[in-house]
């Protein structure tokens, strides 16, 4: 006790210290600790709320992203379908144009072939007619100038005999 006394610590001091400490504890508890706890709880709650909001936002974002992705896919599908339809339509139109051109070409070729055939036939006919005319001229010339009069006379007699068989 003497030691305490030498250090200036006696019962009263200890009591004073204790009372002082009690007051300090009360004040600290009352004005620091509680508000601090309350602040910490508030912060914790706010953080939890923020986390929850963040989570909600994340989920919303994910949902939105998923919706967007779905929409995007649907749009892409629609776009592809439309593109395909346009392609098919364009192909059909192209086929029609090609078919029309082919038909026109065929008609033109047929007409040309017919015209050529007609021209060919006309040429052949003309050549034949000319040839026949020449043969005729030659034959008539030979018969007129080169057949002996006796033969012609004989032909008259023969013709008359033939005519008599038919007419008399």
């Amino acid at each position, binding site marked *: 006790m003497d030691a305490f006394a030498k250090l200036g610590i006696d019962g009263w001091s200890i009591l004073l210290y204790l009372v002082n400490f009690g007051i300090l504890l009360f004040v600290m508890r009352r004005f620091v600790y509680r508000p601090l706890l309350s602040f910490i709880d508030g912060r914790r709650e706010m953080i939890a709320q923020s986390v929850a909001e963040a989570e909600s936002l994340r989920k919303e974002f994910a949902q939105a992203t998923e919706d967007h992705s779905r929409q995007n896919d649907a749009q892409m599908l629609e776009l592809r379908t439309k593109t395909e339809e346009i392609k098919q339509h364009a192909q059909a139109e192209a086929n029609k144009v090609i078919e029309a051109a082919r038909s026109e070409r065929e008609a033109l070729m047929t007409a040309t072939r017919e015209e050529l055939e007609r021209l060919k036939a006309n040429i052949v006919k003309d050549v034949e007619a000319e040839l026949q005319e020449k043969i005729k001229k030659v034959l008539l010339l030979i018969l007129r100038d080169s057949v002996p009069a006796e033969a012609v006379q004989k032909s008259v007699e*023969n013709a008359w005999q033939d005519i008599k068989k038919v007419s008399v």
Partner: protein
Amino acid sequence: MISNLFSAWCADTLQTAVKSGKHTPFGLSEEAFAESLEEVVFFLGSKASLFSDPKFLKEQPLVKEFVSFLGKELPPWMDGEKNDTKTTDSMSSSDEYLKSVFASHQQGMLLGVHVLIEEAQKLVELVLGVKPVRLHVAKAPKAEDAKHLLKELRQAYPSSIPLLKTDTSLLGGARLFVGDSLIDHSWVTRVHTFLSALS
């Protein structure tokens, strides 16, 4: 030409009737003969062609007698049997006319004879309904052969006055026309047939 012959024949008929004192030729009464003769003379004087009034020709008895005359009198001339007949005062007008026509025939001038015969054929067809018969030959036959041909034609087509005509364009053979029908045995037709067969 047939009009001239008809006129000559009418004159002969009248002359014969006067000379004989028999005014009823061809079995006609005197009135009918006189009336027909008057009508025919008027007709020949007024019409440009004998064939301009076929109905008149068909109805006139004198025309029928003339056609009968043609059938009897033309063949001897065509056969050359009467061509050498001497002209005398007693020769009939129709014979004189025929002699003048067939004299040109002997000289190679055939057109007059052909025209006369064609007109005679036309008249015969009109009055008797006998179709004209024409034989076209590529070369003129000898007189005897021509006579034989004509004889055969007359036998084949009685009442007809056949015409034998030379047509060198036939080149050979002959063609027989009976009315509108044709029997063709000419060389030129054979050539055409041959060329047609080629085409």
